[in-house]
C-alpha cells in the first residue's frame, strides 16, 4: 500500500531505529462497529472487494447467510452470522463485521521476521508491505484474531489495510462509506470511544441490554476497530471474538528475551554451515519443487 503521506512508528523485523518511534501523531484512527444496528447487508463486504480490486471469489452455500467460513487473502472483510438462543428462550441473530483489528500492540508485527513487511503508522493503522513479505506465516501465530491470510500464488500474506490509500487522503475506509444504517463509524480513537460508550449506555438504560458494552481489549493495547456489543461479557458469541486476546507468549519471547539467544544460534548455525561446506563441498542439484500454481 502507498505510504506517501503516512509516517511509520513500528517496523517488523527491523534492527535499526524506527523513524516515527515513540512519536505521537495528532490522533489514532479507529473504526467503530455497532453490532446492535448491523443488519448484515454485506455492503461493506462488496465495498471492500470493489475498492481493493479483488477478483471474484467462488463460494458455496454452507447452511448460513455468511458469505464464506473465514476471510481470505482476497476477501478481507466478512460479516459473521451467529444464531444465539438466550436463556429466556428469545433468539438473537448476531452479526459482526470481522476484519483486521489494527491492534495498538500488533502481534503480527511482533512475530514477523522480515524487515519492513509489517509496519504500523503513527495513526495506528497496521499495514502489510507485500514487497518485503517472505510468506513465512509467522504473523498468523502472532495474531489472536486469525486475520493474516496466505496467497499460494504470490507467496505473500494479505489482510485489511484499513484503506490506507483512502485514509491517508482524508477519506474514510470503503466499508465505512458503504454502510447504510450508520452502524459503522470512523474517526479518532477518542471520539469513537466516546460514541461507543454513549451507545452502550443507551442500550443499558433504554433497551434492556444490562451487559451492553464496548470491546476494546487491553491485552493487545486496545484496537483500532472497536465494537459495541449487546453483551460485552460474552464476546465469543459473536463468531469467536476472544474475550481477552493477547499476543502468544512464544511470540513475545521470540521477539524480546529470546531474541539475542536466537541471534547467537543463528550466527552459530552460519558458522556450522560454512564449516560443513568446507568439509563436504557443495550438494548436487535436486529436481526443483513444483510449486502449486493454484490460487485460493
Amino acid at each position, binding site marked *: 500500500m502507498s505510504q506517501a503521506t503516512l509516517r511509520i512508528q513500528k517496523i517488523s523485523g527491523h534492527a535499526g531505529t524506527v523513524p516515527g518511534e515513540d512519536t505521537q501523531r495528532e490522533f489514532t484512527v479507529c473504526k467503530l462497529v455497532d453490532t446492535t444496528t448491523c*443488519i448484515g447487508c454485506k455492503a461493506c*463486504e462488496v465495498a471492500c472487494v470493489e475498492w481493493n480490486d479483488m477478483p*471474484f471469489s467462488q463460494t458455496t*452455500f454452507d447452511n448460513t447467510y455468511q458469505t464464506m467460513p473465514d476471510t481470505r487473502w482476497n476477501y478481507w472483510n466478512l460479516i459473521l452470522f451467529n444464531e444465539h438462543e438466550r436463556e429466556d428462550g428469545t433468539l438473537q*441473530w448476531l452479526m459482526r463485521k470481522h476484519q483486521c483489528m489494527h491492534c495498538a500492540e500488533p502481534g503480527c508485527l511482533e512475530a514477523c521476521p522480515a524487515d519492513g513487511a509489517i509496519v504500523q503508522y503513527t495513526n495506528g493503522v497496521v499495514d502489510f508491505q507485500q514487497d518485503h513479505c517472505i510468506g513465512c506465516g509467522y504473523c498468523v501465530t502472532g495474531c489472536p484474531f486469525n486475520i493474516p491470510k496466505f496467497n499460494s500464488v504470490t507467496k505473500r500474506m494479505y489482510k485489511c489495510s484499513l484503506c490506507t490509500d483512502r485514509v491517508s487522503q482524508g477519506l474514510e475506509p470503503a466499508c465505512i462509506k458503504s454502510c447504510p444504517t450508520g452502524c459503522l463509524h470512523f474517526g479518532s480513537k477518542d471520539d469513537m470511544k466516546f460514541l461507543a460508550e454513549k451507545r452502550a449506555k443507551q442500550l443499558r438504560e433504554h433497551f434492556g441490554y444490562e451487559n451492553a458494552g464496548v470491546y476494546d481489549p487491553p491485552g493487545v493495547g486496545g484496537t483500532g476497530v472497536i465494537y459495541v456489543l449487546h453483551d460485552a461479557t460474552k464476546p465469543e458469541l459473536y463468531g469467536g471474538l476472544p474475550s481477552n486476546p493477547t499476543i502468544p507468549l512464544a511470540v513475545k519471547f521470540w521477539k524480546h528475551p529470546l531474541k539475542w539467544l536466537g541471534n547467537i544460534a543463528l550466527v552459530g548455525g552460519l558458522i556450522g554451515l560454512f564449516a560443513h561446506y568446507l568439509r563436504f563441498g557443495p550438494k548436487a542439484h535436486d529436481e526443483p519443487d513444483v510449486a502449486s500454481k493454484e490460487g485460493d
Partner: protein
Amino acid sequence: MTNGWVDMKNTDMMLIMGGNPAENHPCGFKWPVEAKRTRNAKMIVVDPRFTRTAAVADMFCQIRAGTDIAFLGGLIHYAIENNRIAKDYLVNYTNAGFIVEKDFKLPDVDGLFSGFDDQKQTYNRASWNYQGSGGKSPAPPAPKPGQPPALPALPGTVDFDPTLENPNCVFQLLKKHYSRYTPEMVERITGIPKEQFLKAADLYTSVRKDGDMKKVSTIIYAVGWTHHSFGTQIIRTAAILQLVMGNVGRAGGGVNALRGHSNIQGATDMAGLFDSLPGYLKTPTPADASFDDWMKRVTPTSSKPAAWDSFNYYSNTPKFTVSFLKALYGDAATKQNGWAFDYLPKVDRNYSWVQMWDDMYNGTLKGMLAFGMNGVAIGPNSKKNIDALKKADFLVVGEIYPNETSDFWRAPGISTDEMKQIQTTVYNLPCAGFAEKDGSMTNSARWVLWKNTAVPTPGDARLDHAILAQIFLKVRELYKKEGGKFPDPILNLTWNYSFPSSPPLAEVLKEINGKALADLEDPATKQQIKAGQQLPGFAWLKDDGTTSCGNWIYSGAFTEAGNQSARRDPSDPSGMGVHPAWGWSWPANRRVLYNRASCDVEGKPWDPSRKQVWWSEATQKWVGNDVPDFKADSKPKDHMGPFIMTAEGVGRIFGPLAAFADGPFPEFYEPIESPIDNPLHPQQTHNPVVKRFKTPDDKYGTPKDGYTIVCTTYRMTEHYHYWTKNNPMNVQLVPEPFIEIPAELANDIGVHGGEKIKVSSIRGEYIAKAMVTKRIKPMIIDGKKVYQIGFQIHQGYRGIEEDEGKNARTLANLLTPTVYDPNSYTPEFKGFLVKVERA
C-alpha cells in the same frame, strides 16, 4: 406511504410486519435505526421468520404466514379494551360516529357480511352504507347484461352520534366485530402464544396510554401483506388500528408501504393497473355511454354529518380527466366529442396479471411485449405461464440479460422434441439498464427524483421507450396508409416531441405536469398564466379544455421554474426530515399526507415538539413546516374533515359500498391453502369472493393430500429479483438458492444443513440446499403442531451459476397458486401448503 422514509426518524414506536426492510430496503432502514438511536423508539417485528430486521428489533413474534388480520384485529380489540384509543381523533376525524344502515350484518355468525350472493360469489353491497338522507339515488346508467347492478350512492347527510354509543354506529360495530379477536383466538390462529401477543399489544399501544396524544407510532409493511388473497384487507386493518389510535397524518406515524422496486410507486401512479388511468382516475367501462355518464359515476358527492364540512377533493375529477384527455389527444379532444371519450378503451372485464396469463393459456391473448420484467419467474404458478407462452403467437422481450421469459422454451422439463413443437416467435431486444437512461423515479415516499444517464447503452442496446416509440410510429404509419376500423385514437394521439422516435424524457415529464392551453387567471389572487406555460400545480386544472395534464398528481413536478424533481437542496429548516427542496413529492410537494390530522380540532399540534402544520390565527390560514394537506383557509370551527380525498372528509374505519369487494371491515380468512379450518367460522374458511382458476395447471392442495407445511417466499439483500444472478459480485455473496427449515423439521426428515431437499406443492417442485435454522420454530396452530418454511425467489434457469449447470434451475414460483386478492388482484405468493423431503 402516507409519510416517508426520512419521516420515520420522528417515530416513538414501529410495528414492522409483512415486510423485512433491513433485508429489502437497507438504505431506507437507516431511518428506523435513527429513531431508535435518537428517540429510543421501540421496534416490534412480526414475521414468519426471525429476519435480518428482527435481528435489530426490540421484540419479535413469529406469526403463521397469512394470519396478519387476526393479529392486527387482536391489537384493535386490545386498544379498545384498554382505553388506548384517541377519542377526540376518532370522533372528529374518522367515521366512528357515523350510523350504519340497519340491514348491515357483521360476519360473526357465518363468516359472511350481509348481501352475499352464493351463485355469483360476490356481494350485493347495498347494505354497506351509512344511514342518512339525501343523495341516495344517483340515477345510475342501466347496467348491461352481465354487469353488477349499480349501487345506491352515499347519503348526502349522514346520521351521526358523537358519543359513539349508538349500537349501530361504526365504532360500536367495530368493537363488536373485533371482540371475537381475543388473545386466545389470536394464539389459535397465528400461533403466537397469548402472553407474547399481550406483551406486543401492550408495547405497541403504550404510545396511547390513557388516551394521551403526544406520542406516535408507525406501521411499516411491504409485499408480505399484499401477497395474499385478502392483502388489501390486511392493510385496511392496519389503517383502522392507526385511525383508532390517532396515528395517521402525524410525523412518525401513518401506514407506510415499502415499495419493492426503485420506481414501482411511479409505475402505479402512471396507471400500472388495468383499471386505472394516470393519477388513479377510474377507467370507463362499456356501461358508461358518454363522457358525462362516466364522470357522474366516478365523481363522488360529499357525504357527512350536517354540521360538518367536507372538501371532497375528488369532486374535481372532471377537471383532472378533461386535462388528461387534452394531454392525450390535444385539439382532437373537444367539448363536442366528449373530450374524445370514444377514443379511450372501455374496460369490460378483469385484465389483471393473473387473468392475462390465464387468457393466454386459454388462447384469447395472442402475444406479449415484456419489458423490464420477467413474467415467467415473477408470476405465480410459473408452469402455467410457460405453458401459456407456448401457445402464444409472439413474445417480445426487452431486457438487459436473457432471462426465464425470453428463454421459456428451454425451461427444465421441456424435451428437444417438444421444443421443436413450440411455434411462438420470440424477439429479444437488448434494452437499457437503469443507469443507461435518464428520467424520474418515484420512491416509496412519493418523492419524484430525477436522474441523469450515467453510461451510454452498450452495443446494439436501445432505450426501452425509444423502442416503444418506434413501434407506435410504425403502427401510426400503417393506420395512415391502410385506414382500419377506428384509426382516430392512433392518428390523433399527441406526439409533439423534439425527437419523435426517442422522446426526451424531460419533455415527457413536462407533458405529464401539464400546461395552459389558453391564458388563465386565478380570480382570488389575480395570478396569471399565459397559454403555453407550464402549470404550477393541479389547483389550476380546468374542465373546459383550457389546460392539459398527463397525470394530475404529478402537476407541479416540472413547472416554469424548471424540473422540480431534479432539485437537490438537502436543507431541512424544521429538522423534521421534510427537505422541501429535495426532489419533489406528489401531491403538491407534500411530505406527510393528511397532515391536518396532526392537530387537534382547534388546529393546534397534538405534539408541539413535532409541529407539522397548524392554524395561524394571525393570517387566518393553515401554515407549517410541510405543505398543509387541507383547504388553506378553512377555519377550524367549520369542522372540515382532514381526509380530504374521501367523500366523508374523514378516515374510513368502515369502508362503505363499493370501496371493497370483500367487506367494509376486514375479517380474517385463511389463505387459499391452509393447514386448518378458519377457527372463527369453520364453514367459511376462505375469503368468499376469491376466485379459483380452472385450467389443468390450476390445482390447489390441502392437508388431506399430504400438504401440511406452511410455506412462504421472499427476497434477499444480496440479490435483486432475477437480474443479479448475472453479476459475479452478487453471486459470490449468495451463490445458490436455499430453503430455510426449522431444526425440528430437519431432524424429522433426517437432513443436515447444506444437504439438498425437495419442496413440493401440488403444482410443482423446488429443489435446493436446506438451511437448518433456529430462526423458524415449529408452531402450535389451533392445537396442532405446524411447521413453517420459506425460500428466496432469486434463482432460475438463466444466470452465471445456472448456465454452468451448478444450480437446480427450478423457479420458486412453480409452487405458488394462481389466486389473487379481489381488490388489488395481487397473487397469493405467501402462505401456501407444501411437503418437504430429502432430494
